[in-house]
């Protein structure tokens, strides 16, 4: 039993790594192989051909594309991420703290939104067609329909500019400082991300829960004298979270991309702003690494969701060999 689960997890991890390898090929193809010249982007149009040539040689851009790729991949695997073209600092040193800050933002949004959406969805299902359900459905639909930059702007108007001046409109966070050192500045970005994810997951949770609550085994649980709390948490929840896991995973992965806009809006020093800067200056090593990180978040959240679904579904778990 235990060994079978371990084998399943290892297999999924291997598949995830394979996915990342293919993604790395694609990333490399669309960045390095495309006819865009970082040397020219850095030195400007007036640069002499000799200077451009020298810079390309410096970056290794004059080598065959396969060699460039293997050099890059072996670098990534050994932790040598190359040097940022634009800032001339090692990519790891430049990006590392920003990745940490963004992950922190993402983690808080996830830790907040998952239980929140489960509780809202479950309660809406339990009080189906009553006030809580209709209100939460309407509100979540409105919130889900708004893009996060609109949500962020509205939050800024409410909490930091026009109505109340409670919170700073931008984050004053030094790069490299721990993200929790500016709790106030963190509040609005986290809130924006929460609002971006929670309504949708809550709606999915409600749908899954409504279906479960209509099932024969829930009626049976009531008919054998279980109290409502046991019915909800012991009998209904394990059957409803399985389907919700997949949606939560997709949403968190989406957040990894969505975080870019939110970070820009609040001037948060994370991967979002770094990526935007890097694209502008054709900073290939940074772009490639960030793209790989975002892809890894997708792979990882989906991996966790698949494993989670199997773990909470005995029918799937016992089938593992």
């Amino acid at each position, binding site marked *: 039993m235990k060994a079978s689960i371990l084998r399943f997890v290892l297999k999924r991890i291997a598949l995830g790594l394979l996915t990342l390898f293919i993604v790395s090929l694609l990333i490399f193809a669309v960045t390095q192989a495309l006819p865009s010249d970082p040397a020219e982007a850095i030195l400007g149009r007036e640069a002499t051909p000799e200077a451009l040539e020298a810079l390309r040689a410096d970056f290794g851009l004059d080598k065959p594309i396969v060699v460039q790729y293997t050099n890059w991949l072996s670098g990534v695997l050994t932790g040598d991420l190359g040097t940022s073209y634009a800032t001339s600092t090692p990519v790891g040193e430049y990006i590392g703290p920003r990745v940490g800050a963004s992950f922190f933002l993402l983690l808080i949004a996830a830790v907040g939104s998952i239980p929140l959406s489960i509780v809202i969805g479950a309660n809406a299902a339990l009080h189906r067609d009553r006030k809580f359900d209709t209100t939460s459905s309407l509100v979540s639909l409105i919130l889900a329909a708004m893009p996060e930059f609109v949500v962020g702007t509205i939050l800024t108007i409410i909490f930091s500019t026009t109505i109340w001046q409670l919170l700073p409109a931008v984050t004053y966070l030094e790069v490299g400082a721990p993200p929790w050192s500016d709790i106030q500045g963190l509040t609005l970005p986290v809130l924006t991300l929460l609002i971006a994810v929670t309504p949708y997951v809550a709606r999915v949770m409600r749908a899954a829960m409504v279906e479960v609550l209509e*099932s024969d085994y829930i*009626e*049976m649980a*009531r*008919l*054998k*004298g279980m109290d409502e709390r046991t019915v909800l948490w012991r009998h209904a929840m*394990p059957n409803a979270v399985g389907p919700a896991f997949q949606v939560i995973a997709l949403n968190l992965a989406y957040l990894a991309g969505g975080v870019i806009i939110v970070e820009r809006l609040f001037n948060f020093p994370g991967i979002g702003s770094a990526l935007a800067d890097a694209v502008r200056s054709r900073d290939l090593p940074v772009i490639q690494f960030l793209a790989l990180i975002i892809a890894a978040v997708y792979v990882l959240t989906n991996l966790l969701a698949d494993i989670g679904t199997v773990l909470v579904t005995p*029918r799937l778990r016992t089938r593992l060999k």
Partner: protein
Amino acid sequence: MGVKVSSASGLRIIDLRLNVAATGNDIVDGINLTIEKGRVLGLVGESGSGKTTVGLAVLSHARRGVEVAHGQIFCGDTEVLCLDSEARRKIRGGIVSYVPQDPASSLNPALRIGLQLTEVLEAHDFGGSTEARKARIKEMMAEVLLPGDDEYLERYPHQLSGGQQQRVGLAMAFACRPSVIVLDEPTTGLDVSTQEHVLKTIRKLTRDHGVAALYITHDLAVIADLADDVAVMYSGRVVEQGEVAEIFKNPAHPYTRHLVAAAPDIASKKSIIGLAGRAQSPGKRPVGCAFAARCELVEDACRVEFPKMVAIGGRQTAACIKATQVASVSVGSAKPVSARKVGEPVVELVSVSAGYSGNTVVHDVSLTIRKGECLALVGESGSGKTTVSRAIGGLHREWTGLIRLNGRELKTMARQRAVADRLAIQYVFQNPYGSLNPRRTVGDSIVRPLVIDGKSKDDARRAVLDVLDKVSLPGSYANKYPDQLSGGERQRIAIARALVSEPEVLVCDEVTSALDVLVQAAIVDLLGDLRRQLGLAMLFVTHNLPLVRSIADEVAVMSEGRIVEVGLSESVIGNPQQQYTQSLISATPSIERSMR
């Protein structure tokens, strides 16, 4: 427990009425039932008659959209309908428990069976300690003949067979020693041998522990086998009740009489007789006796008010103003059985084996289906009977051997076969709710094969009207959508669709198993007529052994993918030679056998 043990009465339902909450229309009304301790009352009726609604009310439960209008229900001394929610929770599973229809969907798939058993005991403070509860579970598991060791209790429901799941359901129901138990079709969907074991367990537990049991079913033979008393429901009312022997030997309500006449019986050669029409749903029910529209004894007085219960004698009562005259009237007449002429072989199977992704599930099956005759293919679930029928219909990919149609060898899949061969073999599916496209009128569904065949519009239209007539439906039905039809009507449409391409062979796969007994009898009757008039060769696949005598000339019994016995229906069912067939037949409940 039991401060004051009341005399003999386990369950009393007094003047119970439940409504559709939104409209106030009655779902059931005027229900009065008494079940003494240690006795089983069988509640019979067709789907929609309100049996389950009554059963759930005994646990003080009404489904979404249903509400109790008035009435009282006493489980022992406790009136259950007036309880507050905490008291209600206490009695459920405590003094009154429920065994649901489908054990597979009623056990929680995410929880181990041990936990699902333990929590009932915990919720009712049964047994003072964890050890005492463990001991009680072991005891209960032993009573339902299941192992009670830790390994077994740690299993999840999907790791048990259907019969084992239902025994767990029974163990759960009896765990807290209830005084009343409601069993809602607990053996529907189980094979006969499994059903026999479950029924035995129910009988033993109710007798041994003095439990009053309400057993809900549509299967009269099960009632005859198991119950002490019967109540017959029609359109939300109890129309007749009494002791089992009284009701089955001398049914006093015309509806009961029709039910008995329509029920096939393994122990008799009787032909089954159906009845046209159907019961109306709540809100559309007529004033007076709801059965009046279908009754041959109807008179004006029947339509004025619901008839009072008339005492027939003994404990038998019936809600019919002509109850005393019913016995003198015969319900339709059975068609004379013509002497059997052995027809030409139309379909021959020679050493057919079939499987799924490499696993062979059908071994070396050889069969002959003859012109104008019906061959019944019977067996328990998983015996391979449907796989054989699908191979004949060209719906199964993995089979070897030979299938011949009029001497010509057939290709594996329907789409590889010649158009004429495809048209010659038509398939009717089990579930008429799933086999008709809900977005097409039934006329469009029927006409489809003709359109593919390139017939003109007029010809096609005439053909549709013709087949509708053959299945005894008016031509106006061509413009209806499937959801406007009853189950029986849908199955007639499915048959009409098969007939429209003028087939030589009709493969009927469990075509009556989703239907009520009166409708089943009518469909069987229709299939018999069609076979005689059109000279159809028919393969009738079923798990319902009693039905075989009523429909088939020959029968082949399948078990574990092999034909174990084949021969004339009369001799195979009446005098089975193989041990397997004998055990199947003795496990099948029978009214006749029970009444002897």
